[in-house]
């Protein structure tokens, strides 16, 4: 190894040198570089080989090295980075001289080897080392790339990802050290800069486009061929889509889209307006080009080539069985296919079995083929285009033409299918259509967790609109369905796309909107197409297609997925990783875990995986998918409507949401919230309602055994929380993790900024609420955040909080149970696991557990960042005591872990401790003034007429203990809210939300800290103990704290489902 390695390194370096020399100023750097080199040399005693070995080298070692380097590199100061980089570049030129080359090689190698060792070292040395390491890492990467480059570009890409991840980790470490968020932020920025610097260095020296962080994309086209191209990692979906369309010479492209599969049946449309990377996360960059919107009348398409692709899609649909046809129709459509591809029947040319090479149907029989031949003979004279048109004229009449089916269950747990089509939503049970909701009838589409809801216009004699709920297999499925609905509604029903809602104060719903052209627009545009009919070859839909078609298109993808265990879970690796040796190991791990998570078994591993998965999944999406309310044609409701809404309890009852578990809270909260304040902000009736409901639910923790669904949801929450946190390093890390590319981080930051804005909104809410009801308001916010976290889809905590609240409200239970299992593990193990998780989240290939460097990281840190929660979302809108907060969070996390080990069962012990006026720590529940013992025992089954019923069948038991005492220092007085901050941290079974509000009352500033600790878990957790421990710890932190409320919520789901 060593000898070989050395040789390779040299070569690589040479290559690098060329690039490096061009890139930067040598003189400035030189001095620095020399220093760096010295230090490096000192450190770099150990084997150079590992670093030099390009692909085969153990990925872990490289990764570690990179990590170390990165961590150091992330070091707070930009200048060092630059210096280092420069030095690196300088080194390359020196290499030319050969003398220096040796040095550098050594340095590089040393850096790699040393990295693990260095980690423990003090920051300074670390920084230097880090920089060195980074350089070395870069160098390694470059080397790898070069070595591999001829063969494959991918490895390089992976490296880039890894590096970034490491950087993130470093950032976290730094944070710990400093414990100052501000600093952290700075660091982040620095890291960004550093990264960019790195990019430049890399790109410049190599000059070749490959070195730029590109990813190879493969797109399966409709004719069965594969199109591949290199895309910048940050590229948005649109870029790829445009490329494909260009490749296909397709102008009427709005009917089409790119699909990626999470699994065989989980088809996701690539959002053109979003970065690809964020959407596919760890999945391979493998897409299929498909018809997205089936034109109801294909004859209105302008170009034959468009019809041709539509034909190809339909042939796939038919052959795979997705588009069912009768025997006769199979034969007829097949005959047109043959006519289009082979031309007129020629007895000489078309012998006996010329037809059997085609696949016309899932179950093709001799008889059918004979029929096809028979019909083929009758098509004499039809041109290919005409045959295609005839094909489409017949295919469009098929009842399932253009219907996008989704598995679901109705309120009674009966398996149904929801079909989204141009005209609306179709409900199928088995093959039978049992209901249909045309777009005009649908007022609102929403999803919450794994439930999908449509609000339907009241029927003629009915007064109230009704909400109908369906249960999807999991949250992601619900979101997928929702998105498809949004898109279809927009495309077919609207003249122009609706502008995505901006994250304003009162905004409800996901930001996601269909951004493309509508059918009306695309028709208009295609009228302007003025080009000679493009020539295109009709490739035969023969065996090729058969192989593809035999199984749904997804199949090819599936195989890939199988290869990459991670792919299934989605989160862990990038496609690129596959190729890369390093990535694979980790990916596999991740995948396993992920796979396990769905099982929901109590085992530690599984649980961890679940966390990881969730986090990963959530991250990408959170940003743009928030809460999912799509208001259809009835967007603006007047306040009157709202009031009506509130007033009519009956309606509420009807409302699915309400029928679900927690009717009481809403009523409850109504009282508290002064209508005026709320109303002003609330534009939609739903909104008001939502606000009211959420708080109670959140407070609850489920003592009862959780059903499968609950757990996943919890995980989702976690994810959400992580993603959400604008300021928190943890969240950033996650974000960064998503985006392997350096550049990505910048984006993340941008996102963060947004989120912050959102947060502010929340604070505003808080104010308003505070004005009315101080104590509650805080709670609400907290709740909302939690909710947001709970919702995987909801990206920004603050803006989405309301909507999130809704979700919570419906389901009451907070699901965070999965983590419980882990308690048993030793802390170190936990840390390691956390690290692993974290890494996985980050999608890094790095193997966390083994590495010493990570271990070195302070426990707190690990807990915060990597570990379970990751959720620390510091919404620091107004600067306040950030440090404290962060620290507290960390502590909490640690404590929580411990707490988990303790067991509490049954009822929660009620602890009232009243101390400091301004600081209030609540275990679990938010602060409530009123004396209330709410025991709601609802086995809620909604029995709404046949098909339309809320799906969530849960038995819930909620017990609320509230301390009468609470004064609500903030409450009532309606001070001026200076700042509000919410921090969420999650541990295995515990989620702690810390809400810090700073208010000025009569010139006195008052800081109020509210903590909500939610302990979630299955029956096997001793909740009493956990609660006791949590309270204990909280009290340790804040001796003055008082427990204002304890809510016990038991939920048993009647209908169990499988999650992902």
């Amino acid at each position, binding site marked *: 190894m060593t000898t070989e390695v050395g040789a390779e390194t040299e070569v690589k370096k040479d290559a690098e040198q060329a690039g490096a020399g061009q890139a930067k100023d040598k003189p400035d750097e030189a001095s620095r570089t020399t220093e760096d080199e010295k230090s490096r040399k000192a450190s770099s005693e150990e084997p150079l080989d590992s670093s030099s070995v390009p692909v085969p080298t153990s990925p872990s070692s490289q990764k570690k090295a990179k990590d170390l380097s990165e961590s150091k590199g992330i070091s707070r100061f930009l200048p060092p980075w630059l210096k280092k980089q420069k030095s690196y570049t300088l080194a390359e030129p020196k290499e030319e001289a050969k003398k220096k080359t040796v040095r550098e090689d050594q340095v590089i190698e040393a850096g790699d080897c040393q990295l693990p060792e260095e980690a423990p070292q003090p920051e300074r040395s670390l920084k230097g080392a880090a920089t060195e390491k980074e350089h070395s890492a870069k160098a390694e990467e470059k080397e790898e790339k070069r070595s591999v480059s001829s063969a494959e570009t991918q490895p390089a890409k992976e490296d880039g990802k890894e590096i970034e991840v490491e950087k993130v980790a470093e950032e976290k470490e730094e944070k710990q050290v400093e414990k100052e968020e501000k600093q952290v932020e700075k660091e982040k920025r620095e890291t960004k800069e550093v990264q960019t610097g790195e990019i430049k260095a890399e790109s410049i020296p190599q000059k070749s486009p490959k070195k730029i962080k590109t990813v190879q994309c493969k797109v399966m086209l409709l004719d069965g061929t594969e199109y591949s191209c290199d895309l910048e990692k940050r590229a948005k979906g649109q870029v790829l889509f445009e490329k494909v369309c260009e490749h296909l010479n397709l102008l009427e492209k709005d009917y089409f889209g790119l699909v990626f599969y999470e699994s065989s049946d989980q088809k996701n449309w690539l959002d053109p307006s979003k970065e690809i990377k964020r959407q596919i996360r760890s999945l391979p960059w493998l897409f299929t080009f498909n018809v997205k919107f089936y034109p109801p009348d294909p004859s209105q398409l302008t170009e034959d080539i468009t019809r041709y692709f539509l034909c190809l899609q339909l042939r796939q649909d038919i052959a795979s069985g997705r588009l069912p*046809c009768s025997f*006769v129709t199979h034969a007829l459509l097949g005959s047109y296919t043959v006519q289009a591809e082979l031309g007129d029947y020629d007895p000489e040319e078309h012998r006996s079995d010329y037809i059997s090479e085609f696949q016309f149907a899932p179950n093709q029989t001799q008889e059918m083929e004979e029929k096809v031949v028979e019909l083929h003979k009758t098509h004499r004279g039809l041109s290919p285009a005409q045959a295609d048109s005839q094909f489409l004229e*017949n295919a469009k009449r098929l*009842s399932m033409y253009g219907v996008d089916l989704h598995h679901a269950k109705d309120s009674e747990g009966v398996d149904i299918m929801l079909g989204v089509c141009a*005209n609306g939503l179709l409900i199928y049970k*088995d093959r039978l259509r049992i209901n249909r909701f045309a777009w005009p009838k649908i007022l609102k589409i929403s999803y919450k967790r794994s439930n999908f809801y449509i609000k339907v216009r009241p029927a003629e004699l009915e007064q109230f609109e009704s909400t109908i709920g369906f249960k999807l297999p999991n949250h992601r499925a619900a979101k997928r369905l929702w998105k498809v609905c949004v898109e279809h509604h927009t495309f077919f029903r609207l003249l122009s796309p609706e502008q995505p809602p901006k994250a304003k104060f009162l905004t409800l719903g996901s930001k996601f909107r269909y951004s493309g052209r509508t059918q009306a627009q695309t028709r208009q545009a295609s009228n302007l197409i003025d080009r000679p009919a493009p020539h295109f070859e009709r490739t035969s839909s023969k065996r090729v297609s058969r192989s593809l078609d035999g199984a749904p298109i997804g199949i090819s993808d599936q195989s890939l997925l199988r290869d990459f265990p991670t792919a299934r879970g989605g989160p862990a690796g990038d496609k690129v990783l596959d190729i890369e040796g390093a990535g694979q190991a980790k990916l596999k791990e991740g995948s396993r875990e992920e796979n396990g998570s769905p099982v929901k078994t109590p085992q530690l591993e599984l649980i961890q995986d679940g966390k990881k998965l969730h986090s990963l999944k959530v991250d990408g999406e959170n940003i743009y998918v928030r809460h999912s309310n799509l208001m259809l044609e009835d967007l603006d409701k007047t306040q009157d409507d709202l009031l009506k809404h509130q007033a009519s309890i009956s309606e509420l009852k009807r409302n699915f949401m309400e029928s679900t578990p927690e009717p009481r809270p809403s009523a409850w909260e109504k009282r508290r919230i002064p209508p005026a304040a709320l109303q002003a902000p609330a534009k939609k009736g739903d909104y008001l309602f939502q606000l009211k409901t959420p708080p109670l639910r959140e407070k609850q923790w489920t003592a009862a055994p959780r059903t499968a669904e609950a757990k996943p949801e919890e995980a989702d929450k976690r994810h959400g929380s992580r993603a959400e946190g604008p300021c928190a390093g943890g969240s950033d890390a996650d974000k960064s993790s998503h985006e392997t590319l350096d550049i990505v981080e910048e984006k993340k930051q941008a996102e963060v900024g947004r989120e912050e804005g959102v947060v502010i909104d929340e604070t505003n809410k808080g104010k308003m609420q505070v004005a009315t009801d101080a104590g509650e308001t805080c709670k609400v916010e907290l709740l909302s955040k939690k909710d947001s976290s709970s919702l995987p889809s909801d990206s920004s905590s603050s803006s989405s909080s309301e909507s999130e609240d809704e979700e919570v409200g419906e389901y009451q239970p907070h699901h965070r149970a999965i983590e419980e299992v882990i308690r048993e593990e030793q802390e170190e193990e936990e840390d390691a696991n956390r690290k692993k998780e974290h890494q996985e989240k980050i999608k890094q290939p790095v193997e966390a557990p083994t590495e010493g460097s990570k271990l070195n990281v302070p426990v707190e840190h690990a807990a915060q960042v990597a570990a379970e929660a990751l959720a620390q979302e510091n919404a620091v809108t107004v600067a306040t005591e950030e440090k404290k907060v962060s620290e507290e969070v960390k502590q909490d996390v640690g404590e929580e872990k411990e707490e988990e080990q303790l067991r509490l069962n049954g009822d929660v012990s009620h602890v009232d401790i009243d101390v400091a006026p301004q600081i209030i720590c609540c275990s679990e529940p938010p602060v409530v003034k009123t004396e209330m013992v709410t025991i709601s025992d609802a086995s809620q089954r909604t029995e709404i007429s046949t098909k339309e019923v809320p799906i969530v069948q849960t038995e819930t038991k909620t017990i609320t203990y509230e301390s009468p005492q609470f004064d609500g220092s903030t409450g009532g007085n309606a001070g001026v809210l200076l700042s509000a901050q919410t921090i969420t941290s999650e541990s295995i079974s515990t989620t702690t939300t810390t809400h810090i509000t700073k208010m000025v009352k009569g010139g006195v500033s008052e800081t109020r800290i509210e903590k909500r600790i939610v302990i979630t878990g299955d029956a096997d957790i001793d909740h009493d103990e956990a609660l006791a421990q949590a309270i204990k710890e909280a009290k340790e932190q804040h001796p003055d704290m008082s427990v204002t409320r304890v809510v016990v919520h038991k939920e048993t789901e009647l209908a169990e489902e499988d999650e992902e």
Partner: protein
Amino acid sequence: MAGLGGGPAAFGRCTHAVVRALPESLCRQALRSAPGPDVDFARAEREHQLYVGVLKSKLGLQVLELPADESLPDCVFVEDAAVVCEETALLTRPGAPSRRKEVEAMKKVLESLNLNIVEMVDENATLDGGDVLFTGREFFVGLSKRTNQRGAEILADTFKDYAVSTVPVHDSLHLKSFCSMAGPNLIAIGSSEAAQKALKTMQQMSDHRYDKLTVPDDAAANCIYLNVPSKGHVLLHRAPEEYPESAKVFEKLKDHMLIPIANTELEKVDGALTCCSVLINKSSEL
């Protein structure tokens, strides 16, 4: 061209009709939803012969007439034994056990027409053809005492090209006891509450907007529409003597060739116009 019935334009095309003579046992043993006056067998026969005569002579269909079977008192109502759409025939499993054997003769005759035969073998499935309304674009299947979900599913499996929507039917024997197609895009519907409700259901379930022809009498809403090449739109409807008000409504259909047919006797045993024939469109043999 074949294929999906050639579209709505070809709706009502018909070349063959299967009918069956009525057995004497009908008078006493035929199932009836409610007790009522006895069936005048002689008159019933006359009406039926007129009915068949219209199909055969006036409209030029090839009528395949099955002999009566005394052991099957309801055998005249052939519609319930088979659903034929284009080249495919689904042999049903009638909801009334006493009628199950009616299918055997039907099977033979349909086989002789060289149709693709699908048999409903699932013992949990029941389906009466009278619950099946084919509009030319889709199927509606009444879920009634005679037809269950499983039967509807099998129908949907048999005619995959078409949407099959289910319509609850409570107050009457069959879905088509109060409705039928009176034209390519025209649903004749009775005025009863149940009928109107069913219509609403159908309208909601369909992507297509149908015109409706509301007639005062539910029974009169069951009519037979045919598209006969030489005669255009043809509508067999209940005679003005029976349902004068409804007949007036039909008479407003200017484009239709209206043929009033009395069905006084079979109506006593829940028979309607469509019940007594299975219409088949054998497109030119391929």
